[in-house]
């Protein structure tokens, strides 16, 4: 087995003899615990959690060669639509002990699982709330270096902009997962992604990259943008 550093800080590449291809992983901040049944590899005193691109859109984007990764050790992240924490837990691994992640999730049922995760990981704060109402958590969050958003809602661009306006520092980044089918099932995904990009640009972002996530996720893309304003 061979473990090497990925060009993104806090991310690792793992090549195992008996498995095809290269996997990516993060170092478990909460050793001995799994979050979503991911594989764990112990190597020279460290515990690596395999980051499944079929389960996490951010992993899929990295596998597909995302050009820049704004989430790094020490980042302050606002995560919108954290669900039960599959991706959020890897973000928590990457940012490490000096990083901070605010996890906003609207469903109280899902939050039940997320809260257990937040109790184990000291860099996570749970917020049971609606990402459409950022003023309700602004006093707690204050500001962020990066907004990661995956809410699968038709008004996702608007949600991202509202949050950026209040809570993303100038020069900060947004990573927005776009699901074309939650906007319009009948339209060509390419058209939808273009339209979403235009909306985000109008809201003060410089869009750096749009990454389609197939074959890991159908009809999905990740938009990476830098906030100018």
């Amino acid at each position, binding site marked *: 087995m061979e473990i090497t550093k990925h060009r993104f800080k806090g991310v690792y590449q793992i090549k195992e003899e008996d498995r095809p291809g290269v996997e990516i992983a993060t170092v478990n901040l909460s050793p001995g615990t799994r979050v979503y049944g991911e594989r764990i590899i112990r190597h020279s005193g460290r515990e690596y959690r395999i980051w499944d691109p079929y389960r996490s859109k951010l992993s899929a984007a990295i596998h597909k060669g995302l050009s820049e990764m704004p989430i790094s050790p020490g980042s302050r992240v606002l995560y919108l639509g954290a669900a039960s924490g599959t991706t959020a837990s890897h973000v928590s691994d990457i940012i490490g002990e000096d990083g901070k992640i605010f996890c906003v999730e609207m469903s109280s049922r899902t939050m039940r699982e997320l809260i257990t995760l937040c109790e184990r990981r000291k860099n*996570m*704060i749970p917020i*049971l709330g609606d990402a459409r109402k950022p*003023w309700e958590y*602004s006093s*707690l969050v204050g*500001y962020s270096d990066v907004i990661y958003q995956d809410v699968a809602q038709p008004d996702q661009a608007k949600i991202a902009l509202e949050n950026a306006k209040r809570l993303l*520092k100038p020069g900060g980044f947004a990573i927005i997962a776009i699901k074309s089918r939650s906007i319009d099932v009948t339209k060509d995904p390419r058209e939808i992604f273009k339209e979403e990009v235009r909306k985000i640009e109008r809201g003060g972002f410089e869009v750096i990259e749009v990454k389609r996530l197939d074959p890991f996720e159908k009809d999905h893309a990740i938009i990476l943008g830098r906030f100018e304003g």
Partner: protein
Amino acid sequence: MPLYLITTSEGIGVYRDGEKLLFLEAKSEHIPEIMEGKLPREFVDEIEKRFKGEEILVDDKRIVEWLSQYLLVKLASDDDLREIKRIRRKIKDEMEEWNRIRDVSIRMTRERIRRASADRDKLIIQAIEAVDDLDKSINLLVSRLREWYSLHFPELNDVKDHEEYVQLIKKYGERSKFPEKYLEIAKSSMGADMEPEDLEVMRSLASRIEELYRMREELVKYLEDLVPRVAPNLGILVGPLLAARLMSLAGGLEKLAKLPASTIQVLGAEKALFRHLRKGKNPPKHGVIYQYPKVRGSPRWQRGKIARALAAKLSIAARMDYFSGEVVADELKSDLEDRIAEIREKYKKPPKKGAASRSRRR
């Protein structure tokens, strides 16, 4: 230059032109209030003293709404938001105590989850009681149908499963129309021949009963969805239906959470309990938790002990569900499994006669 009222979990500040005019530090107990869009009373007094009559901009609709009865507050515009964000960031960088706000957020989130499910236990109680009503009605009507249809085809009573029996009648009606495997007995049936309209009315009853079965299924599905949200620990421990019955017998999740384990153990056995109290008969060993497979399926002399162990875990589960929302049921379940294994090992053989009273006391 406008005045800005800036709310943070560290405190409330009033700023003009980037300059701090007033800052009131928040204690931990103030944070939930601030996050709910309320300012502590003493803060409002302080701000009123200094800035009454001046226009103050705030970025939270909720605060604007209720604070405007004391102060001249307005909702901040997009341009203002930029300045407010800058100041918030400064406050956060200087003052944020991560562990403190994290503890408060976790506590608040638990509280919100709990409130989101409060009173939903009333829906559960109605639904489970509707299931029981349906069961009674179904039983009554199936007995009627069996008696009635037996005039025509008594041998079909060998089909013991009620639902299957009902479906057969609904589908075939006349005994000679039954499929292959029933034809033999149908031909030699002792029952009377019937006119089509006699059979039609029986089939119609069968099809209504069948609808009651579907209704019951729907209710069970509903409970399987709702119980885990309201009482996840109870749901995991004993399954959604038994969890619902316990809530119904106790009169709600809150009441269940406040009952001692010994009462939970005999919930649903009130008659036997009164007999015990009034006439000195043996006390009941279990109430509705008899339905738990490992109580029901165990030898008689182990049941009371297993029921007691289960009731103890149920009492913890109910309290977790009502008071904190934390899910610990997997742990409770494995503890219970261990305890049951222990009981089965220790009390393998039935107690000898005469030793029975001694073993009960243990």
